[in-house]
């Protein structure tokens, strides 16, 4: 009885894993094929492990530039979100005696609002201030997208640190700023690293805001990849190779920072 039930469970999960993984494997396979083999009928199921596509892509100026832009934007917006979020997390998780629910939810609501509602005025505003198509505009826009989630989790992180530590600090005569920098931030470090990695990933993967706000100077690799689909600039195997490169941060985060990924994507409703 037990055995046959397990078989059913294993069957269901195998089907699901196949369905989740096969498109990714197909993408990886395509990136490893020579151009002649990518859109043949019948398809070449096994790639011929030709690395030309990767070589061409990594030597391409446009790809290099957009990868650098994406990296700068992801790091910049993550730093900004962590800076604002950890200060707020410390204030709302440690310095208060009772929770400021209204304020906390105001911060979270920035994540639930539809991006189109914010992007339309930002699109006009950035043009007015001559910030359209600059890295700064994208860093700001991505930071706002991240801040609700980052702060929400950091409030929980700081709240979990025992309040007695504060008293001990005060006896030693440190003020709130020293308490934050010397004691609390280091205590929350491992959690902050996890959330920073998640933020980096979300900014790196982001498509909609970047599509609207960047056109040439601040073009991200995601937008370049999108623009190249359907044009002859890159071959299919080169597009697939770019996609695989773009997926690398994902693989790191799902394997190393799984806990924060789960916590972040579900707004902390489960602990992961």
């Amino acid at each position, binding site marked *: 009885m037990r055995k046959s*039930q*397990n078989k059913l*469970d294993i069957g*269901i*999960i195998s089907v*699901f894993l196949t369905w*989740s993984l096969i*498109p*990714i494997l197909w*993408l990886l396979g395509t990136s490893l094929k020579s151009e002649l083999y990518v859109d043949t*009928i*019948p*398809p070449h199921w096994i790639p011929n492990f030709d690395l030309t596509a990767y070589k061409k892509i990594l030597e391409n100026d446009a790809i290099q530039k957009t990868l650098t832009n994406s990296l700068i934007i992801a790091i910049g917006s993550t730093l*900004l979100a962590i*800076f*604002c*979020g950890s*200060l707020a997390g*410390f*204030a*709302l998780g440690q*310095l208060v005696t009772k*929770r400021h*629910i209204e304020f906390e*939810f*105001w*911060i979270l*609501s*920035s994540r*639930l*609002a*539809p*991006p*189109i*509602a*914010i992007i*339309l*005025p*930002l699109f006009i505003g950035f043009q007015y201030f001559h910030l359209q198509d600059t890295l700064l505009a994208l860093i700001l*826009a991505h930071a*706002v997208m991240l801040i609700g989630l980052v702060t929400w989790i950091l409030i929980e992180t700081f709240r979990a640190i025992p309040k007695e530590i504060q008293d001990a600090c005060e006896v030693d005569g440190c*003020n*709130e*700023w020293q308490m934050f920098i010397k004691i609390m931030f280091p205590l929350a470090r491992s959690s902050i690293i996890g959330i920073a990695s998640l933020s980096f*990933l979300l900014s790196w*993967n982001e*498509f909609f805001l970047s599509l609207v706000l960047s056109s040439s100077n601040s073009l991200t690799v995601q937008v370049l*990849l*999108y623009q190249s689909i359907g044009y002859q600039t890159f071959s299919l195997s080169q597009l697939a190779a770019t*996609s*695989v490169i773009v*997926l690398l941060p994902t693989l790191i985060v*799902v394997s190393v920072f*799984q806990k924060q*990924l*789960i916590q972040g*994507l*579900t707004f902390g*409703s*489960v602990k992961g």
Partner: protein
Amino acid sequence: MLNRRARAKILFLTPITALLLIMTIFPFVYLILISFTDRAATNPNTKIVWFENYAEIFQDHQFYQSVSITLIITIFSVFLEIFLGLILALSFTNLYRNLWFLRAIVMIPMAAAPVATLFNWRYMLNTSTGVINYIISIFGFSEVGWLDSKTVALTSIILVETWMWTPFVFILLTAALSSIDKNIVEAAQVDGANRFVLAKHIYIPILKPFLIIALVLRILDAAKSFDAIQILTSGGPGYDTASYNFLIYLNGIQYLNFGSAAAQAVILIIVLMIISRRFFNRLVREAVEN
């Protein structure tokens, strides 16, 4: 005169407040203001038109079409995601092995860069050279234009959305299930409870609040989904797969009709706020209880 603690608190909350004010509150107020004007890139003399933009929305047949497309995509994809996510979470919990590796694989579709995976789907769904049409041709079916006509293209979008977001429901539910006391489950099994009895009397009641969270979060996200539509069909053929959110994008960013797009966006915000209110109330209640 504030004491030092209160001053520190205000100081620490200043950066986030400034960022949110400049980047969300001001833009939001501005959005409402321009929704009462006829501002557009092609229109140099902006004037106030009050509720004209709003009135026009409800006269536009495209509004009703895009809302029905949004509803179709949201209802079908969220239903499939919750249904599949629940079955999978229960199967996973029955087995109960070390979850780390399997979870990492399962999470890839939702954690991956959407442009990369959606490009790949578009390539696999291609009518003449796509691998999916080749596979179904082996089984004797004729070619399907996956992204070429309204019904089929909407089905493709729904399936790809389901592929991306079933992991979300699955992860949320497995995490909730892993907190269940194993002794209760074993005791029930000793009493002869089979999988359906276990699911009905132990798992589902425990999962109920999490199913609601999953439902609300998925509805909120699916209703404003953009990436799949933009990359798979660009709203086409014609406007046949243009959801409401996508229509606002076209109107505001592509055609630069700021005033009218702003009015459309205000309506979207109001609807999403009504949906999320219940969710917020619940979270507030839970937060207070903790």
